[in-house]
């Protein structure tokens, strides 16, 4: 298998195609785990998940269990969540507080800085000098850092700095982080779901403006019904107050930005409307950051930080971690992310909109995930191996930004300005160019 059999990227010929094999092939999946999820920066969680000294949370980098904890000074550290003795996981819950972790298997203990505190019956153990001179602490992540409260780590030291990796996409994390002076928090209540399809279907769907009216007409009909009958029982949704996605809408309503290293944003103009929970701070945010940046905070924004973080701000605000399990199986960890200190009324509105739109028990997400599963079944057909879903916007994509990105001094690698029906697909090219770069060593050119 060669890279050219997986991604057909020939801009001069107007061709960008992706082979179905990248979603189904076990060798591809294995290589993705090695080079992308276990060989580079991945998102681990928010600093606020471990707010104080000795607080910790657990997550994954690819298949590897990870422990993120604060030591007694409050410094955050990232570790492989595995005892150096026999390999057992030492932290078994998603989040907690522990001055030390004691391995449940043979009671080796570790402090919140990852140092070994005790090897049980060490003196009686007749250990060799070589063992005694070795370090029995937890393995630290070779690269670890955070930006504006978003924590990242890498199982390989051979990575650019986090600032370099995130690049211009940092300014899009700023749009989230700057919504409150006190920073961000996850609303209590994590929702986890799985689907029987490849992780890259979720990667793409977050950036997919094309599917909304096709996959979600039942949700749209519910919104229309609510709008007609405005009753006190229903929570207003920003979708019903916005026209940018409706096919009859004219003119530029949004578009996409692509960045180095596979980060992308698709966005639409929502306007500064009371249907958005942040509305209560609209004036204050304009004073603080200027109207242009404030308006951007109110735009519909679906941001992917490659490969596993998505922040969707549309009907409400969701933070997702994509966790690939197998070529045809993915686990999604999802939270409602919110600015700290918002009013009780705004928080309630945010939560209600979230549940209806984002939950796997809601009215929109299931129509996406079932679609992924239908795609995964269809990918078995390799008679015509090249997918044609990467071609919209090919003649609209331009290098650099546009007047909308200029307003917040944002410099994407490429951009597309779109009316409601363009629905750019070239932003996926950014995913697959980053993907191909990382996978190049695994497959011959």
């Amino acid at each position, binding site marked *: 298998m060669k890279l050219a059999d997986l991604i057909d990227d020939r801009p001069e010929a107007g061709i960008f195609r992706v082979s179905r094999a990248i979603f189904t092939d076990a060798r591809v999946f294995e290589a993705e785990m090695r080079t992308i999820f276990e060989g580079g920066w991945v998102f681990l969680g928010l600093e606020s998940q471990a707010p104080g000294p000795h607080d910790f949370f657990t997550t994954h980098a690819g298949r590897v269990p990870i422990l993120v904890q604060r030591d007694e000074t409050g410094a955050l550290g990232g570790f492989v969540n595995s005892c150096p003795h026999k390999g057992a996981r030492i932290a078994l*819950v*998603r*989040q907690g507080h522990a001055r030390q972790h004691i391995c449940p298997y043979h009671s080796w203990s570790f402090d919140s800085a990852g140092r070994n505190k005790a090897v049980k019956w060490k003196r009686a153990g007749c250990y060799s000098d070589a063992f005694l001179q070795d370090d029995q602490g937890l393995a630290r992540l070779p690269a670890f850092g955070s930006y504006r409260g978003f924590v990242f780590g890498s199982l390989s030291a051979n990575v650019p700095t986090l600032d370099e990796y995130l690049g211009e996409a940092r300014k899009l994390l700023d749009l989230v982080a700057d919504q409150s002076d006190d920073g961000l928090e996850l*609303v*209590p*209540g*994590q*929702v*986890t*779901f*799985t*689907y*029987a399809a490849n992780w890259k279907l979720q990667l793409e769907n977050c950036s997919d403006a094309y599917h909304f009216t096709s*996959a979600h*007409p*039942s*949700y749209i*009909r*519910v919104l229309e*019904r*609510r709008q007609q*009958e405005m*009753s006190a*029982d*229903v929570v207003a949704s920003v979708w019903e107050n916005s026209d940018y996605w409706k096919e009859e809408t004219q003119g530029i309503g949004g578009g996409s930005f692509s960045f180095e290293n596979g980060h992308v944003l698709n966005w639409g103009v929502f306007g500064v409307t009371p249907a958005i929970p942040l509305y209560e701070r609209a004036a204050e945010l304009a004073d603080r950051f200027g109207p242009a940046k404030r308006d951007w905070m109110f735009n519909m924004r679906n941001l992917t930080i490659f490969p596993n973080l998505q922040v969707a701000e549309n009907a409400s605000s969701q933070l997702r971690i994509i966790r690939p399990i197998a070529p045809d199986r993915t*686990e999604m960890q999802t*939270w*409602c992310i919110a600015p700290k200190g918002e009013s*009780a009324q705004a*928080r*309630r509105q945010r*939560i*209600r909109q*979230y*549940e209806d739109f984002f*939950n*796997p*028990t*809601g*009215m929109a*997400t*299931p*129509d996406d*995930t*079932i*679609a992924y*599963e*239908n795609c995964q079944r269809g990918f078995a057909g390799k008679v015509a191996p090249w997918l044609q879903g990467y071609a919209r916007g090919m003649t609209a994509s331009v290098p650099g930004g546009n007047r909308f990105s200029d307003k917040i001094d944002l410099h994407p690698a490429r951009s597309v300005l779109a009316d409601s029906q363009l629905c750019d697909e070239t932003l996926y090219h950014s995913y697959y160019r980053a993907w191909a770069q990382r996978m190049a060593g695994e497959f011959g050119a």
Partner: protein
Amino acid sequence: MSADVLTPAAAAALLYREALLLDSSRFSDWLDLFTPDVEYWMPAWRDEVSTTQDPDRELSLIYYRGRRNLEDRVMRLTSGLSIASSPLPRVVHQISNVVVLESGAGAGTVNAVFVCHRFDPRMGRTDCFFGRYDYQLVLEAGDWKIARKKITLLNDTIPTVVDINSI
């Protein structure tokens, strides 16, 4: 015993009827079981051992106040416009351990457990959901109605989708 006191038999009959209506996709009859201002709530899990407690400050899997929200869900489920819902999965609810915890004049609280088996004919896949129900029932014009239903879903790693007919 006066007619407005909730008996174990009356409570079980209502819960079994609700299960039958969901299992046979008779959703408009199902909606009739609820009061107009019903609270319908399936909390999310805060951590390994506790569910969220305050729907206004914490996330729920589903939270509605008002039957009209359930009407929306039924409309979506039966619209033919949701690929997650068409064809409708086949479901069986098994309700047991029905206990009347309190019973006063025209009102009562009931606890029960459920298992729902779901078969999705499109994917050929069977899933099973289980948990606890907490009900508040009220007597309206001679019929017991559901004024509150709290569903505690114990296996909350959701396999692709969970809708109101499989909990």
